[in-house]
């Protein structure tokens, strides 16, 4: 029997995701943060983050993504941005805009912010606010013309799911009128709080199919004006996604308390031990942390995955999803048609009776 060659060792990492706080004025039904969030008292200091950014740049990381929670909840945000830029990183920030003023924005841009991402929840204010769990829609709309006066890249994220996918055309038109540089159309991924609301948010297969030509038409129409990227839900695929570009290959996430994770939801997997940037430098964590090594290579894979040439492309799919759906973190990602549990996905693709939202406190 011939088996494909072992998976190549990871190149130097690319993206550092800095969850600078879990505090957030929004309570989105699809929040991807862990169910157990870090408290404000446990957050890393400005000095901690500055050290982490320097170490990251020295290791070859290119992009820093400041996220949360709401990064604006940190009063030292300009210092964090400046520290990222001075280290040599490209600085992006993902924000709800709640708490932003023109004065604060000017300070962030002056500190070196290069890209800002703002998400929208729906076309109508009432519905958008319902999904965000707070009155944020009008604030976001009002922020855009201010943003456009500053020299930074601006991305609009449309977060789509069953409740808004049927008016995707109008949703794209709303984004278009706001003239972003980039437009991301991203399906909810079912981790964290979103998994609690999966029965409410998961679109039907028909909805997803209807949305595909709409996205393709928008890409064509906006070419050269707005760069459109679309992330389709892997629940509707036959092969798994290369989650986070492969476990421990491209991405490192630091949570507000300094724990280093290979992905947003790695903490759901039993037995994971996360090392902390307060005790170790980033290079040691990247190379030696048991959490980062756990699903590298192919030793952990099922014989089916080990023998599959696609392992070079999808690295065995998503470990968190495999665990959340089958109870076994080493299982074949059930999105894969070769998984014995693939029928679980088929059940999820059909429409469900109306269910009620579960709100994050």
């Amino acid at each position, binding site marked *: 029997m011939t088996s494909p060659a072992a998976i190549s060792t990871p190149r130097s990492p690319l993206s550092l995701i800095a969850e600078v706080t879990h505090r957030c004025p929004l309570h989105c039904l699809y929040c991807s943060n862990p169910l157990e969030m870090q408290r404000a008292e446990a957050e890393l200091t400005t000095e901690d983050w500055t050290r982490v950014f320097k170490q990251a740049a020295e290791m070859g990381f290119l992009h820093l993504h400041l996220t949360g929670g709401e990064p604006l909840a940190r009063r030292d945000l300009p210092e964090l941005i400046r520290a990222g830029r001075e280290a040599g990183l490209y600085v992006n920030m993902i924000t709800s805009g709640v708490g932003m003023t023109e004065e604060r924005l000017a300070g962030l841009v002056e500190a070196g912010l*290069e890209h800002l991402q703002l998400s929208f929840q729906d076309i109508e204010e009432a519905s958008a606010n319902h999904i965000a769990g707070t009155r944020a829609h009008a604030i976001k709309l009002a922020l855009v013309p201010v943003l456009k006066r500053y*020299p930074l890249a*601006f991305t609009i994220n449309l977060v789509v799911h069953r409740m808004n996918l049927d008016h995707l055309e109008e949703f794209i038109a709303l984004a278009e009128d706001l003239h972003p*540089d980039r437009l991301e159309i991203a399906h909810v991924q079912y981790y964290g709080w979103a998994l609690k609301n999966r029965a409410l948010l998961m679109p039907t297969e028909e909805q997803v199919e209807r949305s595909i030509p709409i996205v393709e038409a928008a890409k064509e129409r906006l070419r050269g004006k707005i760069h459109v990227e679309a992330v389709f839900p892997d629940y509707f695929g036959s092969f798994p996604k290369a989650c986070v570009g492969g476990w421990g290959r491209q991405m490192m996430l630091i949570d507000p308390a300094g724990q280093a994770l290979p992905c947003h939801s790695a903490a759901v997997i039993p037995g994971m031990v996360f090392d902390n940037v307060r005790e170790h430098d980033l290079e040691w964590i990247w190379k030696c942390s048991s959490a980062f090594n756990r699903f590298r290579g192919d030793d952990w894979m099922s014989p089916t995955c080990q023998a599959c040439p696609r392992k070079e492309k999808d690295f065995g799919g998503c470990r968190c999803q495999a665990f959340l759906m089958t109870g076994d973190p080493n299982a074949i990602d059930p999105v894969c048609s070769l998984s014995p549990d693939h029928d679980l996905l088929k059940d999820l693709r059909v429409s469900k009776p109306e269910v009620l939202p579960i709100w994050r406190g």
Partner: protein
Amino acid sequence: MELNSTPRLAPGCRLHPTDSVLLIPEGTLNLTGPSREILSMLDGKRTVSDVVTALVQQYEDVDEKEIGEDVLSLLNRLQQRGVLRVGA
């Protein structure tokens, strides 16, 4: 994009200080051959012609028309990708 256009990198797009990489929102573009040098000349004031002239002076035995076409082709692709802005 024309020879008298004055392109510049779009906001949020910049050259990596040492590597042949263009840093863009949510990604990177690898720059091959003289692409990095070409992009480093774009400041919103220089025309595409100015860039071509500079390249012709720098490299011997090159055809100006051919270089002009190559530069326009590169810049058009980058404009389509949304990482260049073009003035008149």
